[in-house]
């Protein structure tokens, strides 16, 4: 189905960063559980099965030819490894059934997860390891890390965390601290198997908390996580859902190398604000366009993203605004890639073979 590209994703990224000719711009429809559909298994079968996750992710990469493999099933893997209860419907994305704590007074009982022992973390690490072994020489393999503040919300519950921010700020800091300890251990393990941590931080959104609250409760921990990853020589992509214009400068200041912009934010504004300091990716609407739209609608939305940010000084990756819904039609994912393959960017192109 998908056309052959002249370069592998790793070759493409290297050339793009160096300003050398590329065959096309990078493109990342953020495929999570849709990978289950590529190999015809139920989403629930991913639980506790690193080999199956790897098989599905590698097959999806080969099927579509996009530029990053991201091992991701749901946001809750680290919280689960710290005691949160996660529900696994047979064939749908897992969801948080109950936070790790029922009483915020119990915060001090939380211990950081051991990524090699606790919950599903070992299986996700196995999936990354297998994907790296299979195709790591041609495509970056990322492991999704739910950032300290968002993970903390799964430890006590989102509304309880929101109330604590105003009523007991010290408790929020203790939660983020233990969250961070898990993040650091998991990020280290991800890099040890040859993959790269990819940061996702839904609750840090300005759709939920204010920029001031972000700076107080989320940013300090995010910075320590990013510093740690940078210390190991890896770059960092940071995704924050929803509205983020009020914190773009902070996201760059804290060291993110690429900002993944949600469809609730403007790529053109992001380019104007921080495009000279950081690479951008985004932001085709995952449900309205990718899930419910036609290939033609995907093409229009993809071209709109390229028009808005294709000439970002630090580079641009066409992507979905957030993880794709499981049932996203393959034809729509193909349409995003094909639109990028046909697009003539302002950067030099090599002759496709």
């Amino acid at each position, binding site marked *: 189905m998908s056309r052959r590209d002249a370069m592998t994703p790793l070759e493409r990224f290297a050339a793009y960063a160096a300003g050398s000719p590329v065959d096309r711009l990078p493109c990342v429809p953020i495929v999570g559980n849709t990978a289950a559909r590529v190999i015809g298994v139920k989403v629930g079968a991913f639980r506790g099965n690193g080999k199956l996750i790897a098989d599905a992710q590698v097959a999806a990469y080969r099927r579509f030819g996009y530029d990053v493999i991201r091992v991701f099933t749901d946001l809750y893997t680290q919280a689960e490894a710290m005691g949160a209860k996660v529900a696994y*419907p047979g064939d749908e994305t897992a*969801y948080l059934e109950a936070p790790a704590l029922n009483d915020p007074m119990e915060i001090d009982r939380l211990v950081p997860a051991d990524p090699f022992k606790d919950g599903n973390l070992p299986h996700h690490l196995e999936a990354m390891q297998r994907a790296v072994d299979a195709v790591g020489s041609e495509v970056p393999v990322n492991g999704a890390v739910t950032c300290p503040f968002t993970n903390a919300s799964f430890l006590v519950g989102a509304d309880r965390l929101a109330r604590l921010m*105003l009523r007991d700020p010290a408790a929020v800091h203790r939660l983020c601290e233990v969250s961070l300890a898990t993040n650091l251990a998991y990020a280290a393990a991800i890099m040890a198997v040859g993959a790269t941590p990819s940061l996702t931080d839904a609750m840090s959104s300005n759709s*939920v908390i204010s920029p001031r*609250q972000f700076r107080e409760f989320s940013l300090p921990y995010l910075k320590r996580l990013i510093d740690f990853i940078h210390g190991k020589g890896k770059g960092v992509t940071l995704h924050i859902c929803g509205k983020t214009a009020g914190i773009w400068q902070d996201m760059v200041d804290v060291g993110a190398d690429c900002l993944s912009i949600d469809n609730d934010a403007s790529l053109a504004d992001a380019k104007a604000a921080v495009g000279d300091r950081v690479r951008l990716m985004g932001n085709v609407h995952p449900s309205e366009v990718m899930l419910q739209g036609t290939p033609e609608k995907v093409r229009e939305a993809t071209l709109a993203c390229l028009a808005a940010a294709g000439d970002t000084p630090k580079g641009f990756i066409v992507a979905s605004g957030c993880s794709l819904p499981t049932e996203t039609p393959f034809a729509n994912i193909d349409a995003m890639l094909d639109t990028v393959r046909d697009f003539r960017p302002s950067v030099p192109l090599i002759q496709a073979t």
Partner: protein
Amino acid sequence: MAKTKEALWQELSDSVLEMEEDRAVAAAEEVVAQGYDAFEAIERGLSAGMERAGQLFEEEEYFIPELLICSDAMYAGMDVLKPHLRQDDIAEKHKVVIGVIEGDTHDIGKNLVKTMLETSGFEVTDLGRDIAPARFVETAKEIGAQLIALSTLMTTTMEGMGAVVRQLREEGIRDNFKVMVGGGPISQGFADRIGADGYAVNAAEAIRLARSLVGASESVAA
């Protein structure tokens, strides 16, 4: 010296806006002690304060944490005043069934909309989260609701919203209810596609939509 009822309304409104639960309770107790009308105090005091908070939310002065604490203050005042409501105060409200669709347990947005609906004079039956489509329909029939409000944050559960509308059609009672939808993955386009009556992008917008929807259904009935 006893405060006027207007002064107490202002006090209730300010304590909600400024997130001061104890102050809201104290003001509500004084309303009761002075024998002022409880319904008026809720409307002109607590609800007005929540409406001002909603305004600040739209202006991005307040965010979700502030709105939650405002609503805590509002409910604390409400708990004091509710036992003093007259029966006819309660009867004249529009009824709405609200819940998060099956398969989704995110309810922070739904809870906010519920709070704002209550402060705007709706009688809200909250089914909670992870609710099967059929239960929305059953409950709406049972309590004689005018409005069904559906929320989801997950793309995997969006289709359940369509199932609610379908069931209403199949039972031939679609016109008896207005259906409004909201949540992260939802859009106006999706609302149109499943045949919902309206979509709201945030809690403040949801209240305006709810008011216009029940206003519209009233004019049809008249």
